[in-house]
């Protein structure tokens, strides 16, 4: 598989949120606005790239029976790094994302890519896979965030378009499910043609 195909698969064909339906918890939790979506997407991308990179480097040294705990230690370390750096240098974003940052540890996408890709491939493809999957996740969150913010708050990236109240349901969790459902339907249609 060439590198470009490997990179681009995370966006539509194997998009972790819209096609594989992994990592629903942060997806529904933080996609209430476009800014949150980007912040969360970037944090997850960083963790994905770093965990894929480190796991592919150490995979030969780790005995099979303890590979999952070993991967989880690596992933949890990178998440803690993100958490510390974010609370120190981007306190506003950190307050917004709150509990969802530590929860990246249990995001299925990260462990899923470690197990399904990084532990079986060489360094460069693993790096590209992590980046593609991370950006695909960001992309899915961003679409969701833009629609939810637009419908729920009548604003884009925090800029109010019309001074009025939107449909509150889109900011709340049920609206996330509804929006996600419609987006998945569109993606399925796109994949057919």
């Amino acid at each position, binding site marked *: 598989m060439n590198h470009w195909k490997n990179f681009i698969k995370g966006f539509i064909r194997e998009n972790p949120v819209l096609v594989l339906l992994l990592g629903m918890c942060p997806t529904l939790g933080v996609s209430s606005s476009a800014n949150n979506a980007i912040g969360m997407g970037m944090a997850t991308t960083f963790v994905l790239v770093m965990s894929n990179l480190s796991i592919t480097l150490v995979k030969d040294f780790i005995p099979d029976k*303890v590979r999952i*705990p*070993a991967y989880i230690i690596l992933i949890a370390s990178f998440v803690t790094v993100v958490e510390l*750096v974010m609370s120190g*240098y981007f*306190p506003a974003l950190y307050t917004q994302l709150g509990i969802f940052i530590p929860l990246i540890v249990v995001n299925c996408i990260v462990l899923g890519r470690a197990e399904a890709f990084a532990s079986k491939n060489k360094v460069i493809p693993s790096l590209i896979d992590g980046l593609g999957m991370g950006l695909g996740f960001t992309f899915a969150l961003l679409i969701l965030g833009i629609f939810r913010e637009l419908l729920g708050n009548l604003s884009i990236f925090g800029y109010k378009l019309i001074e009025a109240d939107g449909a509150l349901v889109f900011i709340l969790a049920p609206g996330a499910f509804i929006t996600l459902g419609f987006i998945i339907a569109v993606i399925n249609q796109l994949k057919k043609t």
Partner: protein
Amino acid sequence: MAKTESTFINMLITLFVITLVASTALAYIYDITKEPIAAAEAARKQAAISNVINDYDNDPVSEMYKVASPFKGDSLECYPARKEGKLAGMAIRTISKKGYSGSIWLMVGITADGKINNIEVLDHKETPGLGAKMKELFFKDQFRNVDPSIFRLKVKKDGGDVDAITAATISSRAFCEATQLAVDTFNNKEIK
């Protein structure tokens, strides 16, 4: 290169090395980020205090003292603000546990004569679009410059003077409760 065998000793060594490396790296990062995190936290407090108290020339954060609250483990933080040595007011970090989903933390600014100057919402987990509207001016502003000995800090439904947020009476009640707690703390204070 051949994969390491899953023998007991191999597993033990691998996990030991990985945890050792991970914890060393984390300790290092923690050390670097400790100061920026403390600075960000202090800046947030400073900003909240200067929002609720207008005129002071001391550093209220350095004079902060704690007062026991009715809630176990969460004491109130009092930040005395002074102008030329005299008490100009006080910012009190107060809490209510009666929010719709969890606790609500407010910074309440009280002037020296006991009036509420301004209120800032520090942290809450209320429903977006309903209870979260307590951050907005239309609700918060009814507390500005009121004298809590005349103005009853309760929602109208409970016989007070506060207009509750539509469809968020519980959040409004919690807001009032936290404010009342700050007022009581101010009235019982010892320093002059």
